[in-house]
């Protein structure tokens, strides 16, 4: 595996493999000295065009625990607008010697475009509304360990609630959860669903109350204030009334049901109860698992030898070495 750009190109087998690898990383993280020399001599560059302290430190920690050298570039999009194109940035940094770029960008598809300009491996840390593959993997790992589902998610019903249309987490999770065999229902008002999801392996509901009592996992997405300006929902208050996890809804959850959120949470909006009072809340677990999952991904791309086999399902093209015409 040369790049991790999206979940869609991983099959169930590869997802399981990465989750199994995560078990090793969890063990390492529990040691007094949570560090192994596996990626010694490799350089990982965190290139974050969209700010995200939590994801960036998660990747930073992951790389360091594998003994890789890490460079952090928090590039505000305005510095790129000052004249250095994305391509220039990538080619310049590549010239310094890079084995992997971890890229977060506000534009869908940017990590995929970047694969054309460098021989380094690319890890998509979130691109626009498109994909957030490591989030999906850590979410799968969380469900796997909390519900004891090491062989797959058959029979699990997972409800993903909220702003699906603008959510890279939702797109990645739909692919990951269904690849592992779960039944997925998207719960949202029609205005927050993507324009055309015929062919998505999901059910759709506009009524959270109808399934809150039987879902095994309730996955809440962040609801942003901007959506009101585009006439997508009338108000945040109405959103919470219809789609938020209110105390009344929380009381109807199954005892074993997990409540998940990719963070950061809008308290009082999609999460209208205190997660500390929800036994099924996995929010902090997700964060812990995030480091281990990212260690597994970096190891798989840079240290496991799998990058040496031809990757028949690589989405990336081969890097162009020609000059610009």
């Amino acid at each position, binding site marked *: 595996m040369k790049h991790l750009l999206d979940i869609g190109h991983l099959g169930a087998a590869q997802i399981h493999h990465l989750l199994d690898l995560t078990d*090793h990383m969890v063990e390492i993280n529990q040691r007094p000295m949570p560090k*192994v020399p596996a990626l010694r001599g490799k350089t990982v560059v965190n290139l974050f065009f969209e700010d995200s302290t939590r994801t960036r430190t998660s990747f930073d920690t992951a790389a360091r625990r594998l003994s890789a050298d890490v460079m952090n570039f928090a590039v505000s999009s305005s510095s790129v607008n000052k004249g250095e194109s994305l391509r220039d940035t990538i080619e310049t940094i590549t010239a310094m010697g890079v084995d992997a770029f971890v890229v977060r960008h506000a534009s869908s598809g940017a990590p995929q475009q970047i694969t054309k300009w460098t021989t380094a491996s690319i890890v998509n840390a979130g691109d626009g509304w498109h994909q957030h593959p490591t989030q999906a993997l850590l979410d799968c790992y969380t469900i796997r360990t909390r519900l004891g589902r090491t062989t797959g998610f058959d029979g699990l019903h997972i409800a993903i609630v909220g702003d699906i249309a603008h959510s890279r987490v939702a797109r990645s999770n739909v692919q990951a959860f269904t690849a592992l065999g779960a039944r997925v229902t998207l719960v949202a008002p029609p205005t927050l669903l993507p324009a055309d999801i015929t062919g998505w392996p999901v059910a759709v509901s506009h009524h959270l109350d109808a399934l809150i009592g039987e879902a095994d996992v309730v996955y809440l997405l962040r609801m942003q204030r901007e959506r009101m300006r585009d006439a997508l929902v009338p108000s945040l208050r109405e959103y919470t009334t219809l789609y938020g996890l209110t105390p009344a809804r929380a009381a109807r959850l199954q005892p074993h049901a997990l409540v998940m959120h990719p963070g950061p949470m809008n308290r009082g909006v999609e999460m209208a109860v205190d997660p500390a009072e929800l036994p099924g809340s996995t929010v902090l677990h997700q964060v812990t698992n995030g480091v281990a999952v990212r260690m597994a991904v970096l*190891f798989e791309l840079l*240290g*496991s030898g799998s990058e040496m086999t031809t990757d028949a399902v690589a989405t990336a093209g081969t890097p162009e070495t020609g000059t610009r015409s």
Partner: protein
Amino acid sequence: MAGQTSGGPRLVMSADDVRRAITRIGHEIVEHNHGVEGVVLVGLQRGGVWIAQQLQASIARIDAAAHEAAGPVEVPLGTLDVSFYRDDVGLRPIVPGSVTDIPVTLDGAHVVLVDDVLFTGRTVRAALDALNDHGRPHTVQLAVIVDRGHRELPIRPDYIGKNLPTSRHENVSVTVDGVELA
């Protein structure tokens, strides 16, 4: 044996031979360490784990026989996966399910690394690195059932089941049923 073309797999140690070797090694460990105090057995994943378990059982019987008054003492047993410490990282796939589990601190311990076959010595070198992350042992000793030669590093075993000269392309497999050379 070296230089002979193999006509098929050959049994070079029988099941009984292996069992006796383990028993003998157990005695040697107890003798060398003047008892079992501070001894920790660490089986290398994956071939050394079952051997370490058998050594643990064997030592318990020996010790019990020596100290009839007290009950048998179980020497602590750990497992070690060295995949992340290999210097040929990137050349072999990780084997899932191979866990590292060291249940006691190794500070001041007499660690006995246990493996099935000693070959180039690189696995043991990686194991020494890995052990460092779990404490600072007083001594580290090495027990193997088969030493097949072709060392690439200055590593030597303390306890050996059998010296078995081999050619590089031959394969040695050690199980409860014996040692096969193919």
